């Protein structure tokens, strides 16, 4: 790892101003599971590392009638074990529990989970200057692309690595972002950006901006949710394909729903096509399969990842059936 200055800010203001004035030279450290990995591989080489953990108040989690308020420093273990989240925001608890290993969940934070960088092996290879690192080529297009995107790809074909993001989007979460000039609250769905918008980053965060809270509204009566994930190895891994499903059932029919995919696109991929199939229907295995087919109708696989299309159809089907209790 290259040497750097380590800053322990005493307040949010001071963290933001240090980040904003140093620009690209500074990086924010939460749990550090992702950032330290990147720094060890010289993918990021900051001169200044700003430790978010000394900013007071960012590790609070409250659950009440309005919903959840989750500080960005709340760990994935805390989320996975929280009894209210397990009962009423099940997809989120399942997503957090599916991340990495116990050691990683004990340190990894929810803010870091949303802001983690891609795992595409070309991006993570120190020797490769790919499109995402300011180069001119996405090597996945012609290369070893078995883990890359089948939806929303181009000009870069990364998949977004977060498990918690699709679950939170399914639960209609927003993020509060605090920066040098302003504080804004944005639906999480609008937080992530496609490579067509800016190939160098995956979120709308601007210089000096920090995610300071995650807000999840209380689910309406009759709402249930689940997150299902398929990985290459069972013990732990990022998603080859995953689906977060939220269904609000009224008289056994779907009154409202969200279907959000992981592992298949450069952003957590909401599927209006699958949602349109489900809305107004009573969930049966056939309806669930149609939702899976609709979700993948526009898929454009690369040379080595066509398996993700049938895989994801089935993940959507199974997640819908589980959520509907069928």
């Amino acid at each position, binding site marked *: 790892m*290259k040497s750097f200055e380590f800053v322990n800010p005493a307040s949010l203001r001071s963290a933001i101003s240090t980040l904003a004035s140093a620009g690209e030279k500074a990086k924010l450290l939460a749990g550090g599971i992702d950032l330290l990995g990147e720094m060890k591989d010289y993918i990021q080489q900051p001169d200044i590392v700003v430790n978010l953990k000394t900013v007071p108040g960012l590790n609070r989690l409250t659950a009440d009638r309005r919903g959840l308020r989750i500080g960005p420093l709340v760990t994935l273990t805390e989320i996975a074990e929280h009894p209210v989240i397990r009962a009423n925001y099940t997809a989120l608890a399942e997503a957090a529990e599916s991340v990495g290993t*116990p050691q990683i969940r004990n340190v990894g934070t929810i803010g870091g989970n949303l802001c983690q960088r891609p795992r595409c092996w070309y991006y993570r290879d120190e020797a490769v200057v790919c499109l995402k690192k300011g180069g001119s080529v996405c090597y996945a297009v012609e290369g070893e692309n078995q883990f890359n995107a089948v939806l929303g790809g181009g000009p870069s074909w990364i998949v977004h690595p977060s498990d918690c993001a699709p679950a939170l989007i399914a639960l209609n979460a927003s993020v509060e972002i605090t920066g040098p000039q302003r504080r804004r609250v944005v639906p999480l769905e609008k937080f992530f950006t496609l490579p067509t918008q800016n190939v160098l980053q995956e979120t709308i965060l601007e210089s000096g901006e920090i995610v300071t809270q995650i807000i999840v509204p209380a689910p309406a009566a009759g709402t249930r949710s689940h997150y299902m994930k398929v990985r290459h190895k069972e*013990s732990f891994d990022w998603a080859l394909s995953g689906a977060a499903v939220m269904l609000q059932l009224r008289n056994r029919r779907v009154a409202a729903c969200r279907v959000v995919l992981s592992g298949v696109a450069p952003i957590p991929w909401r599927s209006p096509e699958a949602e349109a199939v489900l809305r107004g229907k009573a969930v049966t295995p056939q309806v669930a399969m149609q939702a899976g087919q609709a979700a993948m109708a526009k898929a454009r696989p690369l040379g080595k990842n066509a398996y993700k299309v049938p895989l994801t159809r089935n993940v959507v089907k199974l997640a819908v059936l589980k959520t509907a209790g069928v």
Partner: protein
Amino acid sequence: MAISLMSGKVTVSATVNGEPTEWLCEPRETLLEVLRDRLGLTGTKEGCSNGNCGACSVLLDGRLVNSCLVLAVETEGAEITTVEGIRGEKGLTPVQRSFLEEAALQCGFCTPGFIVAATALLQANPSPTEEQIRWWLAGNLCRCTGYDKIVRAVQKAAAEMRGEA
């Protein structure tokens, strides 16, 4: 000043295996590097250095963590337990003894990590099911033994600690 800035070498004080300990290190040094290279606690191993293998597992304020992904400067004031700090009143703990008795190791490189992780598991859950043991130890890789003997060793230690063996 609202911020404290550290560069060059900094002094860090923490409690390591029950002993107040102070060391000098650069901000870029990981807890794993400090334990092994500055404090001489070489029981903690470096397998992958990126969070995949668990050979570097230690307890940080009671939580199981990968010491390769924690900066040593972040542990100011913390309580750190390494495999060297895991000992019974008369020598080995039940977990350590059952790893030997069940032959749950071959080359032994992963063993310190497994001992620390299994000890943390049995503190949190004295009666884990086999499935719970496997998920709890999912972040610890062993390339020699296969996991069955390790799981059996943890089950045996758990029974002994519950007073059943």
